């Protein structure tokens, strides 16, 4: 067989493709520059801009607030990590409970359905209020009084309902023929779930789960409403004593720094799944 020599036609095609690629790259650059110039001009040209710059973009206040807000942010990260683990456990258990068909476990199934209905319906901030102020008021033995812990409980209840639905969608996306094959091999319901259905389901739901966790990261700030000294609360304290809102900017930047890597990871995993499916 003879070696491939690039034909004149192919060389011409590649020249056209290259020139087209150059052209779209320069158009993209130009339009981005125009867009940025317009936005900056629009904002800085607004009548209130000097005032806004003073209250939101004060370099001195920024440096002053950073240590406190940062130390508060550590609490956000802690709340986030603990809640995330608990949410995964609760979500998975609830999703499994909703799939139980044994009649004796009907109450569990009904309870799981009720749980997802209720906690997907109630705004997260309300759940935080109810748990943060209502739970300790019961004065039951063993109820934690630590505000951050109560915040974790509230976030777990709220997000657990969402994550349960994500898991359930994943479980239902596994083709029935996989279950038929497993059952035909003599695997019972539990073993079929554990070895065949769940491993496939969890792989599929990783991107939507990460998306929920990006959302959870910023919602840890809602816990500020019941009082623990996390990032937003620290920023509030600074802002209240100086009448300068730059500390909020500090908090916002910290949250962005945390969520961006997570969002990129989500994109990356989604792209990888697409590639694997050969689409």
């Amino acid at each position, binding site marked *: 067989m003879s070696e491939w020599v690039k034909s004149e036609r192919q060389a011409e095609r590649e020249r056209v493709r290259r020139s087209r690629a150059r052209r779209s790259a320069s158009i993209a650059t130009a339009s981005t520059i125009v867009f940025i110039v317009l936005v900056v001009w629009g904002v800085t040209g607004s009548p209130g801009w000097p005032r806004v710059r003073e209250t939101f973009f004060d370099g001195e206040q920024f440096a002053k607030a950073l240590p406190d807000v940062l130390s508060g942010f550590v609490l956000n990260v802690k709340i986030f990590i603990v809640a995330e683990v608990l949410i995964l456990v609760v979500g998975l258990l609830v999703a499994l409970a909703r799939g139980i068909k044994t009649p004796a476990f009907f109450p569990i199934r009904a309870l799981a359905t009720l749980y997802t209905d209720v906690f997907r319906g109630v705004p997260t901030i309300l759940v935080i209020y109810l748990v943060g102020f209502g739970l300790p008021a019961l004065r039951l033995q063993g109820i934690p009084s630590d505000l951050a812990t109560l915040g974790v409980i509230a976030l777990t209840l709220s997000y657990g309902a969402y994550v349960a639905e994500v898991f359930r969608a994943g479980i239902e996306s596994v083709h029935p023929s996989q279950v*038929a094959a497993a059952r035909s091999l003599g695997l*019972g319901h539990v*073993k079929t779930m554990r070895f*065949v259905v769940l491993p496939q389901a969890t792989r599929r739901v990783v991107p939507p789960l990460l998306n929920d966790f990006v959302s959870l990261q910023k919602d840890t700030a809602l816990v500020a409403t019941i009082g623990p000294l996390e990032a937003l609360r620290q920023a509030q304290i600074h802002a209240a004593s100086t009448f300068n809102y730059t500390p909020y900017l500090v908090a916002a930047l910290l949250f962005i720094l945390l969520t961006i890597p997570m969002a990129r990871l989500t994109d990356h995993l989604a792209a990888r799944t697409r590639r694997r499916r050969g689409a």
Partner: protein
Amino acid sequence: MSVLSIEGVWKNFHGHSVLRGIDLEVEPHEVVSLIGASGSGKSTLLRCVNLLETVDDGVIHLDGEDITDPRADVDLVRRRLGIVFQSFNLFPHMTVLDNITLAPRRVHGTSKTRAEEQAHDLLTRFGLASKARAYPDQLSGGQQQRVAIIRALATQPRLMLLDEVTSALDPELVVEVLGIIRELKESGMTMILTTHEMSFCRDISDTVCFLDGGVLLEKGPPEQIFTDPRESRTQEFLRSVLKSGRF
């Protein structure tokens, strides 16, 4: 005693009877083929034996035990059966080796080393030793189906059910799968298979059953069914198969 005995089995879907009083006996080491047009009830009959469908009437005995009794332990019954599907249904998240050892390890309690040893033996026997660590989507259709057959074999079933195992394969891959089934017959495995491959069916079967509209219309040794069918529907079916070039 026969391995499997089916007596007067009926199955209805949405008020339509798919199986209309099927009777069939399968003796040890016997290979029984079910032939007939699509929708004649071949696959449904296999799914009833496997208890993936519950029968609406009649009784099925496996080694003398009534498996259609609602109190029968479905998982225990299935442990004695090996089923292979048209679409392979390998577990995509597991390697070939894990696919094969899953049931021996998790259902039959075989140790990991022992189960893997057996799996390797089977893979070697059927020319797939190099694929033990591969994932199903890295294999050709023919290789996947051979793995599916090995997976069913690994639990040492009493009876193998093969449902259109070559229908989803390219013609050049059919041969390798038929080869493995032929080898199973030689090793004495009892099998029921549904197929559209008539020359293979004629070659391998001890008994051929022609199903039509949910009725087992005609049953006999392959020479008789293929050369001297008694029923006019069987003649008609074989003629149409002949015309489509599948013989």
